């Protein structure tokens, strides 16, 4: 009887140990990897959201659930990201520096203390290209659409994942919600494929399809039949 009781106790201890080990393993497996480049520039809660990966693996699925608003301000004193009709957007970390690089209309830069960082319009166009690349990396594809205001809305967070790489307001966005070049003409976006969109600035003559147009660099245009 005594032996049986000791045996039962040992069995119970071994079982308890197993349960503890399993729980420990379970707990360890559920830990978020908090290290990484994002940790420095995003809040812990946002980092946890990034760690969970995309909300919706399908680009054509329903929009993501609203997320807590990030607290970031634009260099122009405006709230960088705001709630869109699709919910609260989440900015791509580090995007501030890119938005800062966008070409600004000359009418604004002449009056403002803020001067464009780019020397020429060619760099402006490439900056827009980098912005689109950032979006592609975060979203998994280029923004859907072709019209300028449509692309801008996608870049501002109106997409199934709520990813934003462009402030809601910016001096380079006109009243019609279009991204404009330094001469005030809206850029033209040409979606080649899910991984490439070419950008065209009308240039100083403000007329599209003329010889002074400035185009973004393209790597795969020749591969797309059209």
């Amino acid at each position, binding site marked *: 009887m005594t032996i049986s009781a000791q045996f039962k106790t040992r069995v119970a201890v071994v079982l308890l140990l197993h349960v503890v080990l399993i729980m420990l393993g379970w707990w360890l497996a559920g830990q978020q990897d908090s290290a990484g480049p994002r940790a420095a520039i995003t809040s812990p809660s946002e980092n946890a959201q990034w760690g969970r990966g995309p909300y919706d693996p*399908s*680009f*054509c*699925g*329903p*929009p993501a659930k609203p997320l807590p608003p990030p607290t970031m301000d634009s260099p122009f004193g405006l709230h960088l990201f705001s709630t869109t*009709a*699709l*919910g609260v957007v989440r900015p791509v970390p580090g995007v501030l520096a890119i938005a800062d690089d966008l070409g600004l209309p000359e009418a604004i830069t002449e009056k403002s203390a803020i001067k464009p960082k780019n020397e020429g319009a060619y760099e402006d166009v490439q900056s827009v290209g980098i912005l689109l690349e950032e979006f592609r990396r975060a979203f998994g*594809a*280029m923004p*859907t*659409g*072709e*019209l300028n*205001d*449509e692309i801008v809305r996608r870049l501002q967070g109106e997409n199934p994942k709520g990813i934003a790489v462009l402030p809601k307001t910016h001096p380079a966005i006109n009243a019609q919600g279009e991204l404009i070049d330094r001469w005030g003409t809206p850029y*033209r976006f*040409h*979606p*080649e*494929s*899910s991984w490439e*969109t070419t950008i065209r600035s009308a240039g100083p003559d403000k007329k*599209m*399809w003329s010889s002074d147009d400035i185009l973004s660099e393209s790597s795969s245009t020749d*591969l*797309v*039949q*059209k």
Partner: protein
Amino acid sequence: MKNQKHQDHFDTRRNFLCRSACASMGFTGVVNTLAHLRLVQSAMAQAAPADYKAMVCLFLYGGNDSNNTLIPLDGVARTNYESARPVSSAVHIPASGTGAALPLTPPAGGFGQSAAATQFGVHPAMPNTQAAFNNGDLAFVANVGTLVQPIDRAQYIAVPRLVPTPPQLFSHSDQQLQWQSSLPDRPFQNGWGGRTADLLQGLVNPNSNVSMNISIAGQNSFQVGTNTVQYAVSTSGVTGLAGYNTGTNTYAAAATYPSTVALPTYVANDAGRTLKALDTITKLTRMQLGEAGSHYQHHLEEGYNDIMKRARDNEAFVGTALTVTATTAAIDTAFTNAFGAGVALPDVANQLKMVARLIMGRSTLGNNRQIFFVSMGGFDTHQNQPADHAKLMGDLDKALKGFRDAIDAITAAEGSGNLWNDTLLFTNSDFTRTLQPNGSDATNGTDHGWGGHQIVMGGPVIGQRIYGSFPDLARATGQDVDSNRGRWIPTTAVDQFASVAAKWFMSEGGIYVSGLTSADVGTIFPNLGRFQSVSSIPSNLGFVDFAV
């Protein structure tokens, strides 16, 4: 009681084992096995069809402005057309007077699109298309496009949007891929032409010598199958493998590969010597095994040899088919007459000429069913649209006329049957273009849209009709998406449009070829059931006469 308890446990364990066994087989495994059994059963089916059918996919790369291909001449659609493309706009096509759209003659009872318009015309550069339409050889299917599910404007602009739309709308390569696969909601694996060939090859082509899928426009997604390998032919004929000699050896001799390793088979250059050395080595390893058949010591060697042999076989048979020269001159004449003497034929005309020649040599190819792919580029008319689009429409119009006359020339030379009744050609394009142009002068053009109108042509087509549902062309309402540029939400899915052609291709004398059922249509178009009954054709899409 104890026994009862034991019994309970025994039952549970047995059930557990049963469940485990089932689970180990796996549900997908069972389905897969059943599917294979079905394929085996299909392969053992009674008889291949006695008739011949050729399906030609003509892809208009870049997004054809079908708003100016099929033009409403009256009604609310015309009012809306002129609102977006006013007389002052360079892309405007008038309803009458100089440069007017060529009017189409409605059939008895009208076009059936009275909600939008009762009169339609085609681009002024398309007189042959007008004639073919009025003769009953050609029809249009209105507002076809990529769709995941049926969707209307309210659903499209709803926030959140609960009805999914195809990813990367308005983007060239994505929309091309989705048109060719007909599966916009999943990663690309194969095209619907490839899936059709996968399903039909064993059933309909028992004496096949070459692939069912031949492209004259290079590699494409439409003809990619799981088992089917597309064979690409240039407009001037077969392209031989570099290093093999086709000059001193006939194509038929090439088909005896790999038993022939005679020197004259190879070109006397580095490529030829390298190939000869490789072939000799693989042959020696085979001899080492003491096997004379096509069995190699290494899987890679065997795989390499299979590919080379297939390429040589295709080259041999297609090359032989093209040597059927009896009516080559008549085919040439058909295209020359369509374009006018001394005019250099555009690429699309040469491609369709090659299709006609391959149809002529069909007995050598050995296929009762053949799918061809041809294409035409340059439709991305953001700029200079008036001149560029008119040239494209004119070329397309004449190429279609040449093709129709070439098929008739073959029929006349053969002296029996009517090959035109065995031929179905349809167009595809990335998308149509915005109704509102991006500027008013002739240097401007139009931008990317969504649903557009397609041409179907051939003997089986019930022509002189406009199928589908023609949009009223109203902007920022009706079928327009969330802008005011005029980009139509499709009312007919690519799956619906393509399935009608596929059903014709899968049938003989109005019934499915032995071994096929309507369920197989669902295999080729897995999303079709979201839009309509898989086993039937909606009344506004019945553009094929199955009795022809």
